[in-house]
């Protein structure tokens, strides 16, 4: 026959084990995967002060994209970047304008059904007359799932159009 204190001790051990398992099993808001995309340099000259670059983001989950820009050759304040998604993005998609060397995060789709290819546009413009600027850009797309166990099944790719 098991005594009361032995019973309570076993219950306490169980409580520790279950509390640890509950903490690990629940303390996770979801999964995400990230994919590096195109990385290149664009020169904005007096003859061609702006350039428009287009990309495609293919994903099966909620997604956002980070655009990292580095301006050299002139004052970064004269270079503006606008990043916006195409019409097939989610209704909650955003649009970002950045000046100079910056990192922006843009939601492409944050609905429950985001499984598609979404176009993405990066517009770079130089407002300083008579000067050239070199803009290094890098894109990184991220797909996120609300489930903690989806990290092997969600995917995202970003490529030039």
């Amino acid at each position, binding site marked *: 026959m098991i005594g009361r204190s032995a019973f309570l*001790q076993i219950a*306490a051990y169980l409580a520790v084990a279950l*509390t640890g398992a509950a903490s690990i099993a629940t*303390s*996770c808001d*979801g999964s995400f995967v990230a994919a590096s995309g195109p990385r290149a340099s664009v020169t904005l000259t007096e003859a061609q002060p702006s350039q428009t670059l287009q990309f495609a983001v293919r994903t099966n989950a909620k997604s956002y994209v980070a655009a990292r820009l580095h301006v050299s050759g002139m004052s970064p304040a004269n270079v503006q970047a606008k990043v916006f998604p195409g019409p097939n993005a989610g209704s909650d998609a955003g649009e970002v304008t950045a000046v100079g060397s910056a990192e922006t995060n843009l939601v492409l789709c944050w609905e429950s059904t985001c499984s598609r290819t979404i176009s993405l546009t990066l517009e770079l413009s130089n407002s300083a007359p008579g000067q050239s600027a070199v803009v290094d850009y890098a894109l990184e797309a991220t797909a996120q799932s609300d489930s903690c166990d989806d990290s092997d099944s969600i995917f995202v790719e970003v490529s030039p159009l």
Partner: protein
Amino acid sequence: MRNISAGALLHPVALGAVVLLVANDHVLKRVCPGWLTGKLSDFAGMVFFPLFLQGIWEIAAKASGGFAPSRRILLAAVISTGVVFSWIKLTTAGADAYRYGMALLRWPMRWAAGNTDGRLIPCAFTQDRTDLLALPMLAVGYWIGAARCSIQRRRTPASALMP
């Protein structure tokens, strides 16, 4: 409960907090996502996690000779829970440590379930400074643990404390 290692976790409030965490993360967040369900798990965690840490220490101490509920250990558990929670919620390094730490802890379960290709992929994590509103709930965890320490002190004969 005073002679039971990790006995503080058997307190009804501590057990209730664990049940609330599980129910909130698995049911309530899906049924009614919002500000309140985003906070409930943090509130619950601040109550039971210091007692969980204290319990682990007591089990280890018991295995290596003996233990008595210690207010100092409890205080260290409360402070470390608050500091680490704040670090995770306020800094990028803390959030990354949490994402990868949780992924590491979850990996064996996922591997056993055949649910991974072997890669360690970090968990997503919502970093919200307003979650720090849960910090005062540490006082509840401390209150549960401290009451147990006080009982132990009152019932320990003075002679037993002599070297």
